[in-house]
Structure formats: C-alpha cells, structure tokens
C-alpha cells in the first residue's frame, strides 16, 4: 500500500459524520482515518465525544478486524463458534498451496492409473498418504511459525490438532473421492484407499505425541509406501491386496490401536510433541 496523498477537509468530515457520503468514499475515508490522527480530530466538532468513541470503535472493527472468511461463515452456519472457526481457518494446510499440491498429486496418479500398467496400484498407494501429509502441514513447528507461542497457550494441543485433522481429512476426502470415482475398474475400487488413509491419519496424530507431526507423517508415509508398493506392484489386480480380509483387518486394527494410544497420551501431548 502507498501512503495516502489526500486528507479530509472540514466539509468532507461533516458529510461523513452525518452519513451522507457514498459507500465507496466512506470506505476510503475510514481507511484513512485509521492511519491519520489529525483527520480523526476533524470529526470531533461534528459529533459529541461519547458518540465519536462509539463510531470510532465501529470503524476500527470494520477496518482492522479480520473479516470472517467464507469457510468461517460456513462453519458458523453449522453451529461452530466464531473462535473455533477462526482456528480452523488459520490452518496452514487449508490455505491455497496445500489444496493445489494435493490436487496435482491426485491428478497425476489418476493419469498414471490410465496410462501405466500398474497405475491403479500407484493411485491406491498414494491417495491414502495425502490426508496424513495434510495433518503434518496443519500443526506443529514445521507448519506454524508461531508454534512456540501456540504451545504455551492453554488451548488443548490435542483438541487443536484433532480439529484441524478433521478439516484436513474433510478437504482431502472430497477431491480424493472424486478422483477415486474416475479410476478405471470396478466402482468399489474407489473405496480401497479409504481405510489405509484413515489408519495413516490417525496413526500420524498418535505418533505426533512423541515427535513433531511432520516427522510422524514422513515416517508413516515411508513405511506405508514400502509395504504397499512392494505388495501392489508385481500384481495386476490391486484389489487382491487391498481387499484381502487379512489386510483389511490389519488396517482396522492399526487405526483402532492408534486411536487408543492417542486418547491415553492426550495430556502428555500438551508438553511434548515438538522438535525441541
């Protein structure tokens, strides 16, 4: 922004005070008043002081306070409090870069599913990793430059992490589900990545009570890719692996174990969980 070259005169101040300037001009007058003390005092003769203070508070609220984003208004309409919605909206991974990155990965693996021999396997290996990586991008010293400050606040770390995880999962699920439906092959194939995705996400949150979320996600991703790519790649029917009762059973058991761990460690998580 450049510095404003103009100032209010008595006449404009008077019109602004009684509310007869148009909305566009009023907005720029307000923007100017926030930064310019002399012009603020020009308003004084036109309004009595208590009212001026009141008007002034309104103007500040209008100009300085962050406007609720679309997401915040949406969350508000489903009953979430303003404050909680603010925390969700401040999630780094809900910001543009993450959504773009995730869409690119999905598009590429979808493309692979069509053109490559084992392309579907690649998709089934990659898609479950996305929500876990999203969690890593949502919380912790690597994701939030204010993490050290956040860590010293009374807000429950686990609550904050869970809140953000829920929304990361929600924002990842929608595009990943769409991509899954576009997969070549039987329709239920689209669901084959869901369970491992869930297990990896809950696992990341649970392991985050020991190490920073980005390290937890990285470790689990490497482990998952090592297992899944080896199991999937030599076969041409990826369903063989992902829908085997044994594999499914293991995945569910892992997710459940991670959830139990998380609940048990929720207090410890308040102090540690960082690359100190």
């Amino acid at each position: 922004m450049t510095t404003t070259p103009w100032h209010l005169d008595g006449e404009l101040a008077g019109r602004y005070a009684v509310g007869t300037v148009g909305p566009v001009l009023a907005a720029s007058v307000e923007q100017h008043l926030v930064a310019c003390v002399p012009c603020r005092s020009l308003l004084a003769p036109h309004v009595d002081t208590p009212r001026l203070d009141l008007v002034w508070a309104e103007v500040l609220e209008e100009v300085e306070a962050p406007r609720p984003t679309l997401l915040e208004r949406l969350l508000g309409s489903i009953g979430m409090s303003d404050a909680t919605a603010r925390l969700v909206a401040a999630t780094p991974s809900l910001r543009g870069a993450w959504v773009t990155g995730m869409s690119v990965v999905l598009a590429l693996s979808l493309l692979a599913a069509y053109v490559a021999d084992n392309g579907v396997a690649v998709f089934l290996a990659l898609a479950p990793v996305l929500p876990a990586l999203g969690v890593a991008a949502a919380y912790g010293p690597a994701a939030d430059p204010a993490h050290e400050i956040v860590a010293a606040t009374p807000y429950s770390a686990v609550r904050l992490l869970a809140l953000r995880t829920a929304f990361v999962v929600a924002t990842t699920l929608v595009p990943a589900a769409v991509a899954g439906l576009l997969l070549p092959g039987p329709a239920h194939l689209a669901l084959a990545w869901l369970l491992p995705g869930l297990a990896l996400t809950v696992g990341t949150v649970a392991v985050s009570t020991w190490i920073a979320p980005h390290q937890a996600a990285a470790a689990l991703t490497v482990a998952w890719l090592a297992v899944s790519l080896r199991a999937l790649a030599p076969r041409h029917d990826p369903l063989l692996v992902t829908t085997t009762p044994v594999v499914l059973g293991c995945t569910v058991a892992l997710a459940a174990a991670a959830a139990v761990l998380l609940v048990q460690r929720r207090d410890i998580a308040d102090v540690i969980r960082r690359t100190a």
Partner: protein
Amino acid sequence: MTTIEATELVKAYGRHRALDGMTLHARTGVTGLLGPNGAGKTTLLRVLATVLPADSGQLRVLGQDPYDAVGRRSVRRRLGYLPQDAGFHRGFTAFEAVDYVAVLKEHTDTRARHEEVRRVLDLVALGDVATKRVRALSGGMRQRLGLAQALLGDPPLLVLDEPTVGLDPEQRMRFRDLVSEAGQGRTVILSTHQTEDVAAVCSDVVVVKEGRSVFTGTPTELASLATGRVWVDDAKDPRAVAGWRVGAGHYHHIGDPPAGAELVDPTIEDAYLLLLGPQAAQGRGEAA
C-alpha cells in the same frame, strides 16, 4: 511473593547439558537473565514457559506444578511468553496474528477479543499498522508484535526472551517503560545481552554461565562485585583482565589494579565481565 521456584534443573541435548543444575527464584518485579551465547537462558525460559520439560529438578510456577496437566493449564492461563524467535504466519495481518493467539488464550467473545487485540497493539505502538501483513513489517515491528501477543490479558507472569533485540532507541525506551510498569505487582522474567536493560528495569538479576546461575542479587549488588577492580588510565594497561577505550584517550580497565591506579565506580557490565572470566572480558576489550 515467589512466583518461580526452580531448583537444580537439568536439561540435556544429547551429551551436552544446556541446563546443569540451574537454580532460580523469581518474585514480583523484573528479573533479568544475563549470560553469554549458549549459556542456557533460552532453554531455561522455555522450561519456565511450559513448552519444554526439564530432565530433572524441581519446578513450581505461580504456585503450580507444570508437569501436571491441570497445573500446566493453570500456568498457561496466567502466562505471557515471547520466544526468542517469535514468528507469525507471513500472510496474516498484524491484527490477525495477535487475534489468533488471543483465541488460543481463550478470549472467546469476538468483540471483547478484538478490543483486547487493539489494546495490546497500541501498547507496543503498532496500532497504525494493524492491517499490514506480517511479511510487510520491519524486523523491529515483528519483534513488537511478539511482545504484543505476550501482553494479551495482562498476565501476572511474563516470560520474555531477548525482548529488546532489534528495537530502535525510541522503542527500547518505550519497552522499558512498559516492562517497569508491568513489574508493579506482576512478575517479569527476561533475558538480555544488554547490561543497560538490566540497569534500567530489573529489580533482580541472575547471571547464567554454562547452564547454572553464578550470581543472583540486585543490579547494585552485581555492580559492587567489581568495586576496587575498575580503573582508568591514559594508556592501555596490559596487566588488566580487559581494557577498552572510552572517550578521548582514556582506557577503562577491569582486573587487579596496579598501585596508585585511578579507581572508578564499577558498572554492571564491569562486574558481569569479571564474573564470566578473562575470555569473555577480552572479547569486550577487543570489540571496543
């Protein structure tokens, strides 16, 4: 009243002990931590701010046990903390950055919270740039933004890690006023490399060296450690622990004065350098 009772704290990184039997008691007023780079000041402040658990030792903060989940939360509700490298999301405006912390500090009512955010921004003279993005703020402004969030809710305990770094002289004066005022009835504990900060605002001072405290007392008591060991001369005296040029043709020396030397009143810096030993003191001598 004693706000912080830390006894024999140990915190090791690998084999290196960043805190090695640190004992510190802080009461209402302003306590300053002085110490060279790597002495363990930041590690200590992070332990006090409940973000880093010590390996061993006893700790009570505001009468609570920070290793117990309930006690920890109770401490955090009454704590303002400025970390050494406080950062904020670069895309936030100054207002949003502080507002974000305010939400986490349980200021749930939006209207009241916004008023509080405005109050602390004004306190650090950032009211005029509230709508600027963090990435567009100068280094000193970002430092003040960190300070602003620490002041949210006027907490009874302020933990400030090098709060005056990067501040210009005017803002430094303003900060000193702010902290002196906060020291009335509250506890402020801050680390600094500026002995002038200590002289100006601290009621107590702790000198930290290699993970332990080597001095605890008032700034006057610290300075008096060097009584009779500070002298001036027209030429640099090689027998001094350290000597540096002050003003036109005068050299300020610390160490054991020769017979008949012209003794002068010691400053906090003189005593601090003598406490740290010849190496640190010579660093000062060369820098000057």
